[in-house]
């Protein structure tokens, strides 16, 4: 067994990996975990997106990783730095659940599906194909993305392990 380097991606955070390292983010609820992969360079990137659009941001210093519309371009730029070619990138995503299905009727309860929709739009805008997704429903997910294979492993409390 060889040691696999695990790179943690926090909430509203993004990171890239290559050379067989694995990217991991835990406890995705309404947040979306999106991964980009260059299969030739074997370069992987992951973002833990919390909100659909940076238009609602009121913070001074914008954290690009937090919003779907800013996270995708930021992740592409980071991948470019480690030698990935944008035209080769493919995407996968997981998360965007409605953790509390019956809480009020407020717009906040739809935040999961909105994160999913916005992430898809942001990928389309960059012409990056979405290969697979495991989104929606009402449960939390932890994901791991292997930079050597481009396989996304999804764990949940109720449904065990799944690969896409």
């Amino acid at each position, binding site marked *: 067994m060889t040691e696999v380097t695990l790179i943690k991606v926090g909430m*509203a955070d993004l990171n890239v990996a290559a050379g067989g390292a694995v990217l991991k983010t*835990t406890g995705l*609820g309404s947040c979306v975990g999106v991964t980009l992969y260059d299969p030739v360079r074997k370069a992987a990137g992951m973002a833990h997106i*919390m*909100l659909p659009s940076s238009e609602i941001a009121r913070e001074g210093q914008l*954290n690009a990783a*937090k919003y779907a519309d800013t996270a995708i371009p930021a992740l592409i730029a980071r991948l470019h730095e480690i030698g990935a070619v944008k035209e080769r990138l493919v995407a996968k995503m997981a998360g965007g659940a409605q953790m509390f299905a019956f*809480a009020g009727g407020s717009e906040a309860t739809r935040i999961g599906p909105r994160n999913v929709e916005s992430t898809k739009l942001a990928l389309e805008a960059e012409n990056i194909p979405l290969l697979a997704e495991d989104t929606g429903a009402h449960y939390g997910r932890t994901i791991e993305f292997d930079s050597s294979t481009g396989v996304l492993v999804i764990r949940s409390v109720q449904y065990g392990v799944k690969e896409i």
Partner: protein
Amino acid sequence: MSLFPKDFDFKMDVLREVGNIGAGNAATALSRLLNKPVDMAVPTVSLLPFEEIAERVGGSETVVVAIFLRVGGDAPGNMFFIITRESARRLLQGLLSEDAASDEAEYSEMEMSTLCEIGNILAGSYLSSLGDLTRMQMYPSVPSIAVDMAGAILSYGLIQFGTMGDDALLIDTSFREGKEETQGHFFLIPDPESFDKLFRALGVPVE
């Protein structure tokens, strides 16, 4: 994030007292419900990076039982009543029957709605004492329950803070039932806009 540019320590103290009064009443309600003494810790008030909030209940991937209520009225916010699966089992055995929650992985509909109702009663007493103190309207939404990873659950309560920065202000009170290691938490996460209203109502000068 400069949430309170002035009188930071004093304001944090005021919020600690808010937690003390609210959770104190909720702990009394829980104690009556269980007919057992319930110990409450001194609340902690902290401005925490999103990532660290789930650490309070054992980490992002720890499975917890959480009842969530959206607080409506004059000072909106999010409220969570969070307990371990072990404490949920003990609560249910005390209230329903000895063999309740024998299946840790899945609760029956009756068990889920009992837990939800406990959360409802406790949040109601937390908020009504806070309402009395501040003379503001604060009312809980219909409660909803989830048994899942702490990170996935709590991130839901951080959306309002999300647009402001990468930290959230959390009023956390942990409690323990009798000698048992029942670990539970009340989390109150007021919306960023609610702080000035809370302070004004409590006579704290607001810049």
